[in-house]
């Protein structure tokens, strides 16, 4: 099965950026919303420690692609593997694509941290409870150890004094940083960020981006869907541009932002620059 999976992946994906096994391998992801195909066979490989930023116009499928990784969004074709292990769907011995059982799926999801646009903290739990709930109940980490780790993470995102607060008492930026800490508390192999600053007041965006930048510097493998072009330029190892359910262009940020290869990217960046030039 291992062989079948790897064969399938290597057939469908571009040559990997590095020789070692990729941390994330998506191949041929296809998804329809009714008659509308929103992902048209997308393949993406992310190396360990790589920070990939996905940009593109609204409705291009960026968020959907991200949510397909841990099957928050179902898809009709393609497979995903995280660190070589299938998640969501796998290819069985007869080469047939199968959906994982709920239990296996839950176990696989532990390794994928995701931060949402709308924070999605649990409103009935304190900040600390939000962070330790899954490590304690899902991974079986002793409470004392989980809380110590949670405090470290809160210190990292600059919220040491907020552990007893309920989410509703926090600003959007603070909630989003708690959400980042909550995802990190599971020690994921890869972190996904789904337009995490889009719902924030402009002056709160910086604190969240700073936490993410720190994470990238520490070598976390991450995929960031964002409209923050400056973040893409400064932090990304690779920028992926999506449009119409396809990856149109990908490359180093300096190349992408200064000399895009396709007209579509040039046009997108020009429109973006026109809007945000002061």
């Amino acid at each position, binding site marked *: 099965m291992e062989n079948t999976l790897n064969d399938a992946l290597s057939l469908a994906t571009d040559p990997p950026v590095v020789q070692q096994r990729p941390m994330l391998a998506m191949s041929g992801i296809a998804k329809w919303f009714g008659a509308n195909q929103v992902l048209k066979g997308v393949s993406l490989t992310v190396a360990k420690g790589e920070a990939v930023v996905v940009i593109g116009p609204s409705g291009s499928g960026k968020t959907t692609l991200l*949510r397909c990784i*841990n099957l*928050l969004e179902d898809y009709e074709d393609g497979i995903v593997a995280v660190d070589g292990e299938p998640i969501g769907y796998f290819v069985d011995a007869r080469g047939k694509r199968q959906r994982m059982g*709920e*239990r296996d799926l*839950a*176990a*696989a*999801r*532990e390794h*994928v*941290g*995701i931060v*949402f646009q*709308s924070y*999605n*903290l*649990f*409103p*009935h*739990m*304190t900040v600390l409870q939000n962070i330790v*709930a*899954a490590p304690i*109940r*899902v*991974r079986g980490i002793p409470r004392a150890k989980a809380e110590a780790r949670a405090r470290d993470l809160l210190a990292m995102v600059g919220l040491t004094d907020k552990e007893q607060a*309920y*989410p*509703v008492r926090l600003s959007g930026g603070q909630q989003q940083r708690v959400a980042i800490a*909550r*995802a990190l508390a*599971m020690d994921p192999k890869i972190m996904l960020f789904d337009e995490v600053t889009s719902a924030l007041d402009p002056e709160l965006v910086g604190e969240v981006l700073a936490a993410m930048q720190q994470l990238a510097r520490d070598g976390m493998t991450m995929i960031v869907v964002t409209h923050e072009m400056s973040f893409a330029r400064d932090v990304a190892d690779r920028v992926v541009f999506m449009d119409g359910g396809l990856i149109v262009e990908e490359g180093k940020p300096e190349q992408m932002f200064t000399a895009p290869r396709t007209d579509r990217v040039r046009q997108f960046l020009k429109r973006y620059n026109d809007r945000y030039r002061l």
Partner: protein
Amino acid sequence: MKTFAPLLHSYWYLFRGAGMTLLMASAAVVPATLLGVLLALVQVFGRRAARSAVLAYLFIMRGIPLLVLLTFVYYLLPLTGIDLPPFWGVVLVLAFYYAAFMSEAFRAGILSLPQAQWDAAKSLGMPRYLMLRIVIFPQALRLAAPPFISLCVNLVKATSLVSIVGLWELTMASREVVERTLAPFQIFLGAAFLYFCICYALALYGKYLERRALVGH
């Protein structure tokens, strides 16, 4: 006071009736709630056949007046050979009847949670039972609390119907006393007052629960 004083020991009789009403309601509310939660879970997560069966059950329960159901079961039960003391027969009817309404309150609570809460729980690798227990239920029950409490109040008042099938409780006790004393106004005022006290206490408890559950909101 002259009109009430001679009736003092009759009021004591009403108190005992109220005790019976409370006992009956308490005995019914527990299975009603458990069954209500179960029906709600089947409605939200069950397979299609199970969902249809629950839906049919809800329509039947909601479409029949409780009084008709009570009378029906009262006459039907002996024919089926099931030998159940009338008290427990009535408690079961109340439980099955109110479970249908309670399940709708719980279902609404579960469904009104944003999809985002499910997403967050799933993404943390929580298996379904854990997700339900620590993320969904605490929030869903808070949302379901007001309609649930009002259904409990309804259940208490509905016990007054069981006097029709010959069970003794507050309403039956009142009628007996009225036959003896010929003072319907004073006696039923007393009965109404007792019903009101029970229901008002329930409502206050509901408010307290709501306030306590509002932590973090």
